[in-house]
């Protein structure tokens, strides 16, 4: 019986590789917001450096103010970083633990609400504190943990940890307490309910 020759894969060396660095810088600027734009000002003059430092100082000052308001519950709207028009609820403060159930479905943007679609029912997901939703230039939406690691992309079929929240008939009220803001009526869910997720998601791979 012949053995496997890994050199067969060397044919991949034929593939031309595009220079994606400019695109990476552009995407990173979008992802990080205006306070990170200074990352890519290569040969700045001293004047530009001063302006940049001012911008950074202003951004840091703004971030500090936001942090103060967040700590005291003043400005926390549960959507720390989500594209305009999309409701992406997160816990208003870090949680000590999460329910250990599992929900399976397709992460879906339904009318500006990120839900887990399970056939004809859907769950509105409540994400951990610090989770963000970001949109790239192709319109793709990705959910990121606060440490910068990817949870999932909207459209993915995922298994996600967590559990339903709230007692029957009082779910919405409970959810609004958890996230510190109102849930827009377009995002109210019926039979599915509200699911507080730990953000631990796995996605079955194609063909597996």
């Amino acid at each position, binding site marked *: 019986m012949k053995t496997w020759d890994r050199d067969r894969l060397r*044919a*991949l060396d034929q593939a031309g*590789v595009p220079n994606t*660095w400019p695109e990476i810088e552009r995407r*990173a600027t979008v992802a990080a917001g205006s306070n990170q734009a200074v990352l890519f000002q290569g040969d700045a003059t001293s004047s530009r450096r001063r302006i940049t430092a001012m911008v950074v100082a202003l951004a840091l000052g703004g971030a500090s103010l936001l942090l103060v308001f967040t700590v005291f519950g003043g400005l926390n709207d549960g959507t720390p970083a989500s594209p305009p028009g999309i409701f992406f609820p997160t816990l208003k403060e870090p949680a000590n633990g999460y329910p250990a159930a599992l929900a399976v479905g397709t992460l879906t943007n339904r009318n500006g609400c990120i839900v887990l679609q399970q056939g004809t029912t859907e769950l509105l997901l409540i994400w951990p504190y610090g989770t963000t939703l970001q949109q790239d230039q*192709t319109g793709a939406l990705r959910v990121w943990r606060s440490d910068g690691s990817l949870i999932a992309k909207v459209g993915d079929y995922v298994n996600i940890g967590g559990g339903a929240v709230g007692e029957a008939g009082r779910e919405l009220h409970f959810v609004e307490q958890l996230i510190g803001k109102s849930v827009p009526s377009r995002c109210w869910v019926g039979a599915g309910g509200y699911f507080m997720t730990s953000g631990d998601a796995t996605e079955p791979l*194609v063909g597996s």
Partner: protein
Amino acid sequence: LYPERDPESMAKTSTDAVQRVYLEMHERLYRTLLGYSGSRAIAGDALAEAFAQALAHLEGIRDVQAWVWRTAFRIAAGELQRRAKEVHGELDRAQPPTFTEPLDHLLRALQSISAKQRMAVVLHDYADLPNDEIARVMGIARATVYVHLSQGRKRLRSILEDSNEDLG
């Protein structure tokens, strides 16, 4: 207030560190992603998005290189899954990739094995990633990596040899 901390130079240092990783490994990562996905678009998008997110979230990342591999493959896997659903499993068949031989031949053979087998084979036999890292990228146990690798190699060898005989 903090004269020793220059935000611009700190930011530039971080960017330089990521750019060094990019220069060191982007060709290998792109080609490995291409072997896995069979698509230039998916490979390029996954690579660009992973590095962009690394730049945007650098403070929380201990090992940029490992993080980028994991993130890029996770993005590519999700995109493959999305496309497969959209076209009901007819991924790329309507528009077959136009690569030159023997690359085209290899990519078609790779697309004939399962995604996990394909990922294990390209990460191990092309990218030379350590087994522990492959297990982390794939989100499975190290022992399971060996199973996918063994089955993938076996199937791939069979497919490539059969097609070589057809050509001969």
